[in-house]
């Protein structure tokens, strides 16, 4: 278990989900004649003018608004993603300039499949917890792509979540402890310069997703001396609708505990953003004193588990920026043709 020498917490949070959706059935219409089930009902689709950077900017702005912290006070802007628009050139500096930070900050990009955002979060905890930084912004954002016709195409979606880490006494939720568990498990990867990832089908399940999430979560619970029942809410990484519900059940969490943070059935897997966004959506409805467990997962592989406690400050700050519900409400469905045009799947010559 990792704990900071100085208590830390979330001072603000912000989310982003694009306006557009494609229904799982619409993708199935193209590839399976509509036969069979779909892993999520719909997934978010980024507009032509959206990418990891633009979504990070909006989520970051909301996090700053909620915290009431001016951008100039930030010491850290870190963006975790598997879809950074540039292979070489940080997303972090663009996001920082758009937020209007001082140039005297640490800005960098993280990469760890769907866990890149939580890597940034853990590192931000270290920066603030060690006293190196007063305010650190950790963002997870992705415009994930699946190969046309591949199982991933149904779920790989777009979104962002930003968490502003600061001292626990100013927090709307304290982060009490975290555990990180990793191993070299090749369940999913994308070679440099390739557009779509490769995944190991059933191998992505038990030895990968389930083993890592359960390892990190049970270790955190045992070291804290708590059980699943001690948490008001829980969020697990959501590569589809089924895995998080299954792992929650195996770990002893109820449907009610994971419901507020379960977003994948509606927007798909926003990769680096999905677990963090689930936490934000949970904070949207949480009460002071509530306890939250979040375990993220990234292929390749690793899981980070966090224990949080909501404070009184949440009630005052929650309404300062749009809630997840506002982003979920503005859904505009597109068909596969529009989706293909927007996602660069048409050969334009």
């Amino acid at each position, binding site marked *: 278990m990792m704990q900071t020498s100085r208590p830390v917490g979330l001072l603000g949070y912000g989310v982003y989900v694009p*306006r557009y959706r494609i229904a799982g059935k619409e993708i199935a219409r193209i590839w399976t004649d509509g036969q069979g089930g779909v892993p999520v009902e719909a997934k978010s689709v980024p*507009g*032509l*003018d*959206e*990418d990891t*950077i*633009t979504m990070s*900017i*909006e989520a970051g702005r909301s996090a700053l608004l909620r915290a009431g912290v001016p951008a100039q006070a930030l010491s850290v802007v870190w963006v975790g993603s598997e879809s950074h*628009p*540039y292979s070489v050139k940080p997303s972090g500096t*663009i996001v920082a*300039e*758009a*937020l*209007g930070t001082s140039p005297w900050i640490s800005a960098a990009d993280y990469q760890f499949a769907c866990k890149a955002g939580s890597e940034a979060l853990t590192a931000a905890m270290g920066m603030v917890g060690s006293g190196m930084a007063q305010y650190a912004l950790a963002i997870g954002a992705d415009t994930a792509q699946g190969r046309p016709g591949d199982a991933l195409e149904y779920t790989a979606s777009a979104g962002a979540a930003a968490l502003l880490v600061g001292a626990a006494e100013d927090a709307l939720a304290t982060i009490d402890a975290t555990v990180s568990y990793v191993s070299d498990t090749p369940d999913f990867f994308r070679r440099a310069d390739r557009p779509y990832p490769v995944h190991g089908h059933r191998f992505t399940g038990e030895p990968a997703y389930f083993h890592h999430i359960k390892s990190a979560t049970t270790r955190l619970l045992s070291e804290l001396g708590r059980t699943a029942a001690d948490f008001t809410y829980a969020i697990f990484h959501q590569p589809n609708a089924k895995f998080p519900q299954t792992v929650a059940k195996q770990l002893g969490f109820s449907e009610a505990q994971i419901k507020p943070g379960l977003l994948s059935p509606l927007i798909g897997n926003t990769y680096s953003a999905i677990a963090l966004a689930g936490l934000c959506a949970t904070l949207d409805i949480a009460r002071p004193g509530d306890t939250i467990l979040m375990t993220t997962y990234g292929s390749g592989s690793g899981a980070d588990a966090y224990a949080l406690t909501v404070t009184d400050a949440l009630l005052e700050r929650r309404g300062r920026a*749009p809630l997840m519900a*506002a*982003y979920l*409400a*503005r859904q*505009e469905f597109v068909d596969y043709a529009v989706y293909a045009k927007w996602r660069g799947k048409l050969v*334009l010559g």
Partner: protein
Amino acid sequence: MDLAKRWRQKPAYYRLEGQRHRTSGEVRFPPQPPRVGESGEEWEAYPLRGTGEIYSFAGVRTAAPEYAAQTPYLVALVRLDEGLLVSAQLTDCDEAELQIGQRVEMVTRRMSDTGVDGLLVYAYKFRPVLE
């Protein structure tokens, strides 16, 4: 490739930073060099709030080459709450649902992709205020 130009434009393009006159309080956008009779020190950088209402809007169906792959798209004149007008694209909305006077807010979006070996250009657009 306009590398230096894009680098110069960051404050205005990324976060709608204009100028405010230090004594009169007049706000203007885009930032400009001093006019005849003014000194540069009279104006300070001033971040606009990015909220306002639609003064007029139009749908673009024939665009310059860098935007040809994005048609149709919407452009507008937006009356900012600071009182000035700004020209920009609208995003995340449909023309049929728009009306003059509608509240909009600034977002930073990817404008044009200058090719696989080119720079990505980010700048302000406006969208209907998220309820």
